């Protein structure tokens, strides 16, 4: 039997059947454009401009409204506080009647009798505008008027912000329109769902929808059917196509082309990856709890690496070692003290035996004539008796609690004893020694 040494182990696990959700790029053509066309239209408007915005409004649009003093400007903003810089741009020098409508969820601009519906908020420098001619713009016009007169909580009239002033019209409800209708929420099932490339919209992907995408073109979710689509709270009876998109898919790892760039749903959506065929993962050394279990020692876990078909895990099993704070056992010292004391007592007894023999010799040679015979006899006998008593007296030295091991070296901490051995053939003896131990005891290398 040889020396006890560490053992190198390995294991291959397949993850090919694991199913992941990921985005796969469909196209990267963007439909976003700047506002120049809209700005030109505003500058040439004759009558009114009406803006509905869920955010503050891009300064270039506001500049155009400022430039055309002929037109009357009206705005509804979702939040005066968040759109503060838009609200502040209007006063008696350029009046716009601005109202705050909390439930506003869409962005659009009515310029005279045409309109543009924007997919994204108007604080963005580029946007996706949908043009509505006169016949369709009237739907947006009605919705604007509905929000303005019925749903506003605050208004800025010239310079002052106050509660809205009483409407000249009786309250009126929404009506069924041909092109654009306001809905309560986008809960119904759609054919396609597009969300922005932003993980905060991730939960929306849990909705029941046949096809799901994210798009760099979007800042708000978009729900598409074949002949209509929903953005914000508008259901628009028009066909709409998003070109820039990544489609959400769900597949086994082995079925995903490893040459394909994908974006796993659960990862950051900023970077794409490729599926790996195989990867080796070197695990940390594992200290076996016992010398016997070393051969079968597995890692506590096989750490998972996603997006890899199979992983080869490698690790090293090392035998148990005594802890660094273990000191050579005090048992050794106890035994030394005991042995020393015992030796000394034995040496002293030898001396007493020699003295006893001498005394006995003297006794046998004692001359009765000696006038002091009796006195000497008595004395010798007394001394012999004392010596015999002393010699026969049981040694009064306590033994250490345990014997010292026959193999290895014994170490200890406050709680545990460690018998450090070097070879496997010492192991049996070490285990024998272990049987007598009532304390915590480990065999280490």
């Amino acid at each position: 039997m040889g020396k006890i040494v560490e053992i190198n182990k390995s294991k291959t696990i397949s993850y090919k059947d694991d199913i992941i959700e990921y985005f796969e790029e469909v196209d990267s053509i963007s439909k976003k454009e700047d506002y120049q066309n809209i700005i030109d239209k505003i500058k040439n408007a004759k009558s009114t401009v009406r803006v509905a915005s869920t955010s503050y409004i891009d300064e270039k649009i506001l500049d155009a409204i400022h430039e055309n003093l002929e037109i009357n400007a009206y705005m509804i903003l979702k939040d005066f506080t968040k759109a503060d810089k838009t609200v502040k741009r209007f006063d008696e020098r350029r009046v716009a009647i601005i109202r705050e409508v909390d439930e506003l969820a869409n962005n659009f601009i009515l310029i005279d009798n045409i309109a543009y519906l924007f997919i994204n908020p108007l604080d963005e420098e580029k946007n996706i505008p949908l043009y509505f001619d006169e016949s369709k713009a009237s739907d947006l016009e009605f919705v604007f008027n509905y929000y303005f007169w019925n749903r506003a909580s605050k208004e800025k009239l010239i310079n002052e912000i106050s509660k809205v002033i009483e409407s000249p019209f009786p309250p009126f409800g929404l009506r069924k329109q041909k092109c654009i209708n306001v809905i309560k929420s986008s809960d119904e099932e759609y054919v396609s769902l597009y969300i922005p490339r932003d993980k905060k919209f991730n939960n929306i992907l849990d909705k029941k929808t046949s096809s799901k995408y994210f798009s760099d073109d979007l800042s708000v979710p978009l729900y598409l059917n074949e002949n209509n689509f929903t953005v914000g709270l508008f259901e628009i009876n028009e066909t709409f196509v998003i070109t820039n998109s990544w489609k959400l898919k769900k597949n086994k790892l082995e079925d995903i082309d490893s040459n394909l760039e994908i974006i796993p749903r659960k990862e950051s959506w900023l970077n794409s990856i490729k599926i790996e065929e195989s990867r080796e993962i070197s695990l940390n050394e594992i200290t076996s709890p016992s010398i016997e279990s070393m051969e079968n020692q597995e890692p506590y876990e096989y750490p998972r690496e996603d997006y890899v078909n199979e992983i080869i895990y490698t690790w090293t099993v090392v035998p148990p070692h005594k802890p660094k704070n273990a000191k050579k056992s005090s048992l050794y010292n106890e035994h030394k003290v005991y042995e020393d004391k015992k030796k000394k007592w034995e040496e002293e007894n030898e001396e007493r035996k020699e003295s006893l023999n001498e005394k006995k010799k003297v006794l046998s040679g004692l001359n009765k004539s000696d006038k002091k015979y009796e006195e000497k006899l008595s004395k010798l006998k007394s001394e012999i008796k004392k010596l015999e008593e002393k010699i026969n007296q049981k040694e009064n030295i306590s033994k250490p609690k345990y014997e010292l091991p026959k193999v290895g070296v014994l170490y200890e901490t406050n709680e545990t004893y460690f018998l450090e051995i070097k070879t496997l053939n010492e192991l049996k003896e070490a285990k024998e020694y272990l049987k007598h131990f009532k304390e915590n005891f480990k065999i280490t290398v």
Partner: protein
Amino acid sequence: MKIELSKSITVKTLEFVGEVNFFEESPYIKLLEGISTQDELEKQLIEKELSPSAIKNIIQKLESIGVLLNRDIVNVQDGFPEREYGKYGLEMFENYTSLPFKFKNKEIKRESYISKNRVDSIKKDEYLIEKIYKKSKNFSDNKSFKVIKLEADKYIELTQKNANIKLHFKENMWQYSIEKKLFPMDKIELDNVFDGNWDNSFNALKIDFHRISEQEKFLISFEMSYSDNITIDGYGTFNGKFQNIPIIPKTKHDAQQWLLYLLKKEIEKKERYISTDELHYLWSNLLDAKPRLDTFDLEFDFETILHKFGKDSKYYWLLQSGIDLYPFNTGLTPKARVIIEARENINLENDFVSKFNMHNPKDFIIVDRWINRLAHFKALEQILKALGSPKITLVTQALDKNISDDDAYAIQNIIATNGIKKIEKKKKEIVHSRYWIFDNQEFYKTNNSLDVIKVDKHNIAIKEQTTFDLYNNKDLEAELMNVLGEINNG
């Protein structure tokens, strides 16, 4: 309305020698009572059995003192003339205008008695007598006197001072006063007082709007008070005080400016958004309340009203927003359209009702927020008559709070007489569009309220072209259908 015109006139003190009649109490007054001619007198005296010589003496006496003149009894109204000759001091107002006196005597004072024989050439000087004014009363004791003769050219002007004459116009009557004494006078035509600017049909001063454009009180009350120096032909120049003078716009343009001013005030008072309909309503109400404006046939013109305010005024936006953000354009095409042209003297049956494609509807519903004044109910009454008195349900708001008790009473009378079932709702609860619904199947939306029909005694006029658009009920507002549901469910 009060006018006070004052001017300074000269009071001259003259001294003359002449003959003056002082009118005193006398038994002759009683004798001459009821007698106007010499013949009647003689007949009376004969009846009293006076001798012819006594009668002759009396006649001669009366002739000599001027009581009998050309066989007529004259000059006894103020007393029986006692003729005296002597030296007199006379205070006399001097006036060369057409005022009610040329020269009015103020006071005569006998200075001393002078024997007629001691004056060499006593003769009548009609001119002077005329100038002095023949007959007068002393301002001090109100006793009448009459200067009959002056010794020719024998008056001396002693002193000259000023006095104030005031012409008063009050309760449609002219009087003048001098030194707190009031005298009747002939009327001066107000057109002369106001330089040809008096409107006799409205009894009001025609005035340029710009003259009072800053005077809110005048513009609202249609009365003005002011002071001004005026010159009246033949009467000279006066310092005038004019109080509560009724005023009327001079021209149609002035009327329009005036109405716009009042309308602006109404708008400012409301301090809220105003729809075109409500503005139209305010416009009509103002014209109803101000007949002096209504006479100019002003046409409602939103743009003109709007331009009274600048774009930096919130009132501009309180009006314009209702136009720019008008929410009730459905874009639907009506099934049919009835057009009633603006016209005076129309016959509602022939010129109005017959244009609707129906005969004697049994059931008639009007949903209109703006039927709340007497003029509207008068028009409704006429429409009901023309329609053959169908069962009528009217959905509208409460009566205008500013209407008088009389108007409210008259409205109640029309409601009761015509069996109008009036469903009163808050203005906000009534749909904005106006509907006329016949027999629950013909739904007409109209652009004007009932005030477009002006009922003036027997003349009925349509003030503006009015359209009635016929729609399918599926195209109507849900809010309207709710109201109709309420009506039909009782």
